[in-house]
């Protein structure tokens, strides 16, 4: 186990500057998308549960930047950020939140079940920890076929306490599966602080139990995340070995839309303290120091991103609901979209 340090890389050359701008844009896109989703939720345009990614953007952006288009990603229910960073359009994600036919799961999934087969995005899973073995299954398939893809799994630190985590990490290490397990440690499983839920306080130490390389990573610095992910992905791709990354981050908002940012289980001061290391601010300050970002460029970027989100919102609102006559579509392969397949006849 190692704790990664800040990379030495500076944004001096043009290629790097472009890369940093890309990270900044993606993080801003996720931030504004989530703020807009929060608004839409308050207006009743989004139903059910909705878990925002505000504060954790560097984790998705820094890690997904290290992947190839043919790699697989599996996530939990706080997955808007990963979906956007992977390249599912803000239109398709927003429309899914609105339950529309144009959504990335055609309105059948919702906020917690975003999918995109073309981008290797295997969901959006809402039973804590249940998707960890699924991601390992994709890694198993990669190895079975003799490919060099990588399967990445995102889960919260609370999922590290469920049986599926243990069973999967054991098998992934035992069988040398090309997987990266990203434990996004945002400090709280709903309202339960990690120290009240895990006997081992450093979750990366759990890697020892499975003889699996592990790192604790600063999740507020997108460049640190990217470098740690590069190491993990290389290990998976070239050696077919899994890695556990504990990426330490913080959500600036409540667990879900019904939870205040602070009040019961954490203090306002604590949230304020973490907000000082806003991942967007961390990167922007660095770019300003390097001279690749100034006020004009910043506001141009903000304008561009806000326009994209406004467009996504308009698109989602204007999109049609799924056709009610297709209620039964996709329960089974080739099933009748209009009819039940079951014990009795459709009555």
């Amino acid at each position, binding site marked *: 186990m190692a704790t990664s340090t800040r990379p030495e890389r500076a944004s001096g050359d043009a290629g790097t500057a472009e890369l940093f701008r890309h990270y900044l844009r993606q993080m801003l896109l996720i931030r504004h998308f989530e703020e807009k989703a929060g608004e839409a939720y308050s207006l009743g345009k989004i139903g059910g549960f909705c878990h925002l990614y505000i504060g954790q953007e560097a984790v998705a952006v820094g890690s997904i930047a290290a992947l190839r288009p043919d790699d697989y990603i599996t996530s939990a229910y706080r997955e808007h950020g990963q979906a956007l960073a992977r390249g599912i359009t803000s239109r398709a994600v927003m429309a899914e939140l609105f339950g529309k036919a144009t959504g990335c799961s055609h309105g*059948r999934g919702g906020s917690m079940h975003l999918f*995109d*087969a073309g981008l290797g995005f295997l969901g959006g899973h809402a039973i804590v920890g249940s998707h960890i073995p699924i991601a390992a*299954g994709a890694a198993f398939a*990669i190895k079975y076929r003799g490919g060099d893809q990588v399967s990445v799994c995102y889960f919260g630190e609370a999922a590290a306490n469920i049986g599926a985590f243990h069973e999967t990490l054991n098998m992934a290490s035992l069988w040398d599966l090309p997987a990266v397990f990203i434990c996004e440690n945002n400090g709280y499983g709903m309202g339960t602080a990690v120290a009240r839920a895990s006997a081992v306080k450093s979750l990366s130490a759990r890697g020892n139990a499975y003889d699996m390389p592990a790192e604790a990573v600063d999740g507020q610095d997108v460049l640190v995340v990217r470098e740690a992910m590069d190491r993990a992905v290389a290990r998976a791709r070239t050696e077919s070995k899994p890695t556990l990354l504990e990426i330490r981050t913080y959500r600036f908002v409540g667990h879900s839309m019904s939870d205040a940012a602070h009040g019961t289980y954490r203090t306002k001061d604590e949230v304020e303290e973490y907000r000082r290391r806003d991942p967007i601010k961390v990167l922007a300050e660095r770019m300003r120091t390097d001279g690749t970002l100034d006020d004009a460029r910043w506001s141009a970027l903000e304008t561009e991103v806000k326009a994209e989100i406004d467009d996504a919102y308009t698109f989602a609102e204007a999109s049609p609901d799924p056709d009610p006559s297709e209620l039964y579509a996709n329960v089974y392969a080739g099933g009748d979209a209009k009819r039940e397949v079951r014990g009795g006849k459709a009555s």
Partner: protein
Amino acid sequence: MTLLTYRDALNQALREEMQRDDRVFLMGEEVAEYDGAYKVSRGLLKEFGPKRIVDTPIAELGFAGIGVGAAMVGLRPVIEMMTWNFALLAIDQIVNAAAKMRYMSGGQFGVPIVFRGPSGAALQLGAQHSQAFESWYAHIPGLKVVAPATAADAKGLLKSSIRDDDPVIFLEGEMLYNLKGEVPEGEHVVPIGKAEIKRAGSDVTLIGHSKTVAVALKAADQLAELGVNAEVIDLRTIRPLDTEAILNSVSRTNRCVVAEEGWPFAGVGAQVVDLIQRDAFDALDAPVLRVTGADVPMPYNKHLEKAAKADVGKVVEAAKKVLYMAAS
């Protein structure tokens, strides 16, 4: 035709499907080096090697989920549960993942997977090893549930299940593994969703699946001695249920008894009764009766265990009731 045990018929189906399609692999506890806890996978490690015959740690939830993930990206896993009792540990993957993935992804990710293993009570294995869960799985949209009663159907239905694009719950009768029957060689595929009339009759329809097919057939023999000509239907698939076969038979016999190993409350028989009362109400000359396992955890004591099981005598008595014959 070859005379094979139900166990060897399953083995043949696995072997043939693995030869036919290299995306098919078998994963589970003791399936490889031990040759299978019930020897269904005997010889397969030798033929296909450890890449395709995969021993797992005791981690039902984990390897069920690994199967689901592998199926989502294009493989065709066969996941062996050493017994279906242990699959309770994996039911989150079966119900929350495998069954729902196609639907909640808007049709993008199918899960072509077979979960298979022995089901139902054997002899004196006690409460935790003597359960029949077909109604649990049949309740779930997205799953198919198959329960063969003969060696030929074991082979033909397993081949269909492996080729199916949806998750299939394949329930093997633990007490049927040694049952012998004529099995067609090579390509023998029995379609999912088709019941079979095992014995034609005109006075009463006896419906069973898995172990209760033999029970119903024996009951039919005893009823014949009383001058009753019973029809016996083997459901073979629980979901999708062959509603046509049931309704056709009952509309001719006007009387019906449904026998199953599982518990009575919300059992498979309850679904069959619902169908018949709704769609064959006018044909009925008597209420449909059900024979089930007793509504208790299975006791260990062999006399109590016998009393708790659906058996020939109970089916004969139920048939006599629906025929309004005097109890013996």
